[in-house]
């Protein structure tokens, strides 16, 4: 039993009795100094072309299927004799060289859906392709293990389905000050001055009051905690760069938050893909590298795992507009300091054994990645969150 678990369990035992406040204070200090594992999710929206991201540059089928879209060998950052990265991913290659990156290839799910909305929905709710859910996987994690709205933060204006549970929701903010300002009109404080108001126990109205009080307190906590830290790192000056910078600020101020959710859109490259994707991947990689360095400077990288996914990959064959159409399986990036399996986690997908649409046949169900992260990183029971048992992988 490690110290953290021991502390957790012993505090559980002692909570049966009266817990002296100094014990609790000690516990808080202990857990923050002993480390606090958190997850950062980066969603690439629009369906990133995985085959031009992680490239099988020795495979003739690849160049045959993509006569004007295939990336020439000379432009590829080689990882080994078979596989290389898109040239705009240099910063990611540096993370790879340090052993911070694990690339999981050919990730998908059975009966793939090629609609953006629906496929994103499946990734966010972690359901089968033929089931619909009104709660997301991080939301359900919060249902069971969340304490406050800020237990999970979406660095955006409003919450994705991924962050909404059956009973409990995360909080969204890309500007802690603005959220705090919105919530702090004294009028709102004054209407719930008296505690133990009978209304608090009422079914719906009580829920509204409780939500209001929790929101006010989370908004205040996020603002007051995060304002103590400013990032000195340079990030790309755009929305995603700012999102990652804000996330780093939140983490480095030691916010008591387990999951952060960010996203970068624009990957729906049906037309003239090469430059568009280059720009997007470049932005992604530069932001992530700055983020990792920012965390390392503040000693928080070791407790942070970054998961990057997209709702689907794209068709193997290029289309008539030097772009690609919606496909199926794709790669997932895991970034962290103590990865069990660094570099390429598994082989690239077969480009000759395709489905009827000419799309990749997936090998790894994305929910096995979620299950692994839930169990081995967030240390919770993945079955409670995913409503089903999945095998685990061993990248962490």
């Amino acid at each position: 039993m490690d110290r953290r678990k021991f502390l957790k369990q012993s505090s559980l035992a002692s909570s049966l009795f009266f817990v002296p406040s100094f014990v609790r204070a000690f516990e808080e200090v202990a857990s923050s100094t002993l480390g606090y594992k958190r997850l950062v999710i980066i969603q690439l929206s629009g369906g990133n072309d995985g085959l031009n991201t992680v490239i099988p540059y020795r495979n003739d089928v690849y160049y045959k299927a993509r006569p004007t879209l295939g990336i020439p060998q000379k432009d590829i950052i080689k990882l080994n004799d078979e596989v290389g990265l898109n040239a705009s991913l240099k910063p990611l290659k540096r993370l790879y060289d340090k052993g911070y990156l694990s690339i999981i290839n050919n990730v998908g799910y059975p009966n793939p859906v090629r609609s953006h909305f629906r496929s994103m929905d499946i990734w966010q709710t972690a359901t089968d392709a033929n089931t619909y859910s009104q709660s997301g996987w991080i939301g359900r994690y919060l249902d069971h293990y969340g304490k406050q709205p800020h237990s999970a933060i979406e660095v955006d204006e409003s919450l994705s389905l991924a962050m909404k549970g059956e009973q409990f929701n995360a909080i969204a903010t890309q500007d802690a000050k603005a959220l705090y300002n919105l919530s702090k009109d004294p009028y709102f404080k004054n209407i719930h001055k008296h505690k133990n108001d009978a209304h608090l126990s009422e079914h719906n109205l009580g829920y509204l009051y409780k939500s209001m009080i929790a929101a006010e307190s989370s908004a205040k906590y996020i603002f007051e905690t995060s304002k103590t830290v400013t990032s000195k790192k340079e990030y790309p000056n755009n929305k995603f760069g700012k999102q990652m910078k804000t996330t780093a600020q939140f983490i480095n101020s030691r916010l008591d938050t387990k999951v952060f959710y960010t996203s970068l859109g624009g990957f729906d490259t049906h037309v003239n893909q090469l430059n568009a994707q280059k720009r997007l991947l470049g932005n992604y990689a530069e932001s992530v590298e700055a983020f990792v360095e920012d965390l390392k400077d503040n000693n928080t990288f070791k407790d942070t795992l970054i998961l990057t996914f997209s709702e689907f990959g794209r068709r193997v064959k290029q289309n008539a507009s030097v772009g690609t159409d919606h496909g199926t399986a794709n790669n997932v990036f895991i970034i962290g300091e103590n990865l069990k399996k660094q570099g390429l986690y598994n082989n690239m997908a077969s480009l000759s054994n395709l489905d009827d649409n000419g799309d990749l046949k997936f090998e790894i169900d994305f929910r096995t990645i979620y299950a692994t992260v839930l169990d081995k990183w967030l240390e919770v029971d993945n079955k409670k969150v995913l409503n089903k048992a999945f095998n685990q992988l061993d990248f962490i």
Partner: protein
Amino acid sequence: MKTKHIQHLYRRIGFGILPATLNKLSKKSEKAIINELFKASKQFIPLEVDTSEIKAIYKSAFMKGEKLDAETRRKVQKLSRMKQLELNVAWIERLANSQDVLREKMTLFWANHFVCEDNSITYIQQFNNTLRKHALGDFKAFVNAVSKEAAMTKYLNTKQNKKQRPNENFARELMELFTLGVGNYSEADIKESARAFTGYSHNLQGDFVFRKRAHDQGEKTFFGKTGSFSGEDIIDIILEQKQCAKYICGKIYRYFVNDLIDENHVNEMANVFYKDYNIENVMRYMLTSGWFYNDQNIGSKIKSPIEFIVGLKTIVPTDFKNPKQLLYIQKLLGQILLNPPNVAGWKGGKSWIDSNTIVLRLKLPSLLLNNAYISKEKLGEVDEYAQAKKEAFKKKYGKRFKTVANWEYFNTQFKNVAISDFQKHVLACEVSESAKAYLQSLEKVSKKEYCVQLMSLPEYQMC
């Protein structure tokens, strides 16, 4: 009819009621009021934005027998996106200003039952009007119409459902979400009924097309019956199940009466509905039932974002000068009309509320109507700086939303309402003790300021 009950009725089948109408109705009987409601909703008035440009493109391609080339497709998509925004705004205006308020509220209800979404403005507008047309009609005709809508055959892949390669998506959701509810059918029922819906498709203009060659005419066994069933036959058999009436009534009850189901009330409704599947009849039964007006049902539901926005516009007519801001508010509140999260729709009830939406809902009335200013003038103490404060608020927040609130209309409407009665017109439920105490400590500067104060309460979220 008691004013309290009329208000409850109008908050549920509409978005609230103004004092003059309330006063007029309070002299009438419940029966007369409800008769009038249905009478006003007899006619179906389609909601349409001008799509002639797109229709012309479709038509000429159709005449030439050609498919659209990539460039034209992109043009149509761009136009479509613009027009979807227009339709969204027009729908909200319709909700706020319609004479046939019951039909419109029902349309909103069905839009979260037969959930559908499509990029094409012509298809989704047509779908939306199908909801409106059947909103109070025959449920069987309704389900059949929905199954044949271009937008639906696209959304749930009936288009791809072919004899050689059945696609079960529509068949599954037809039973799981549209008629029976999860667990009330078998996987075999899904497989067999999917075969019956093979061949359902549409042409470019959005008309239903039955592709005979793609249809599986073979025998199917469904709910213990065997025959060479068509899609219509399958819907007949589904509606023979009492469970269908129960499932639909449960949904209507949760939407119009209470999140928490009373089995007896739902069973009563299901008995009525099962007789002829006439939606008007079951609605009439529900609205004339004594239990509909029980105290525990009054002011007990959390407004949806659309109910919140339209309700606010009902009391203080508010014009959004920039329609994109109206869409943006819907996004932040978690419900964009025409843009549901998935076919399961919005969960509703408590799930409308998270930290972000509650904070925004409390702040939005003051932001939209009063430059973010909520008066906190103490009782009996005249705040000399109130005007200066308001000016400062206007400077700081006034530009955030380009809205024009018609307070003159409000003042005329509420002129004869005593300040002591005012609260009942704005709030559907009792105010909590601490909020009450705080409000009593404040000066009622004007009805306008008082209105903003009341709208900035958690209680205002209830209907």
